[in-house]
């Protein structure tokens, strides 16, 4: 049977719409673990290295403590974003995201458009990376003296260090 042009077009539109929306919905509901592995922690430290100038040894305890207080849903978001970043990273650099240098990690995030999108808990990988990784790491660091002393702020907003700073020598 020979298809007419209209039949072929309608068939293709139907198939590609159903297929595309099916993939969209399926991947939107992908379940992930709610625990961050060591490799995942390294990924967060790579993000911190990219977005903040603090030394890694100062950053690690802050990030660990922050991640420990996150809800299960937030941790799932972090793990999902990190695992998808790992996949892209292995394709281009042959290593997981946590093993990348600062320059390589920055290049990968720029390619994904993380510097050009709004932060969003759901959406594309770029938007989720911005929300779950970049903004989370920045929040953790900029509400602790370990992340703000480099900028001359010893008692940042959100850090419960008021008593210490008032009681100490000026």
């Amino acid at each position: 049977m020979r298809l007419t042009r209209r039949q072929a077009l309608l068939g293709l539109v139907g198939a590609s719409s159903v297929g595309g929306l099916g993939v969209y919905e399926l991947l939107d509901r992908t379940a992930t673990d709610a625990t961050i592995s060591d490799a995942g922690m390294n990924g967060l430290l790579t993000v911190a290295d990219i977005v903040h100038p603090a030394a890694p040894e100062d950053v690690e305890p802050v990030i660990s403590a922050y991640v420990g207080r996150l809800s299960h849903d937030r941790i799932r978001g972090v793990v999902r974003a990190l695992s998808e970043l790992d996949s892209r990273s292995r394709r281009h650099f042959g290593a997981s995201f946590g093993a990348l240098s600062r320059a390589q990690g920055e290049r990968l995030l720029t390619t994904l458009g993380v510097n050009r999108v709004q932060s969003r808990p759901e959406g594309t990988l770029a938007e989720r990376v911005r929300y779950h990784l970049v903004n989370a790491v920045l929040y953790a660091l900029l509400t602790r003296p370990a992340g703000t002393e480099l900028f001359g702020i010893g008692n940042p907003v959100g850090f419960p260090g008021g008593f210490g700073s008032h009681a100490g020598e000026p």
Partner: protein
Amino acid sequence: MRNDGIDRGLRPGRDSLPLVGTVGALYLLVALGERALSGVVSVPALSVVDLTAALPVPVLLAAGPAALWGILFGHVLSDAATSSLGPGTLVGAGAHLYLGYATCTLLRRSDAPRASDSAGLGRFVLAVAVAAAGAAAISGWGGEAIHRTPFFVAAPAAFAEFTLLSVPFALPLAGLFRRVASAGASAFDITAAPRRRFDGHPDLRRVTAVTVGWVVVGTVASVGYRMFETVPAGAFTSRDLDFVLLLRQPTLFGPGAGRLQVLLGAVLLSFLVVLLADPSDRGGTPVR
């Protein structure tokens, strides 16, 4: 579907298996080479450019339609070898298949590429650019469908990558080594003289219009809806434009209107496939 010349070449036969294997191996070699190079050479943009984007057009020009299966196989092979096999593999393979297929089909609708002929050269570059724009739109569409990158990020980058990598690698094949190129090109009837005179290449115009329309509408919608979501409601209510807020339905349209992008892409991709695979009668009938 009337594109019988290509249709015949598409059917995989036992004799095309070595070709499929060779193209697959070429993809693997380039992917692994790119990865090795990214660890040694520190060129700012090199590490994130997918060098396999240089392969589809030259490979199809040289080897003919059977190489389409090789492109698909090569994509799966190189992604499996780099531990990045996933939904993105399908998107990448789809974009590469379209790039090669559309370039060769558009060239078939016009004339043989000639390096010495500036008009032929211009048509060749135009065909590659139009095919690259379509492949970039597929990348952007796929990026939204698999929740990887917004359309406005993926499509322009992919267009630059496909065009800049395809033209330099395909031109020598089409011009300097015409004898090699003609072996594969003849399978597409690229070098065959058309029985009827072309009437201003109408198919190229239609394909160009749909492709450019897709890239422009996709980009504007991708940026526009994301901005629209962040504008405070007061900006509309204070101007008696409350009805505009009815369009702000992220749960219905998906975050960043992802579902709408997927539907738009499905419709326009279908149009492009039909235009390429079933050209109108006005486009002339190739000799078989």
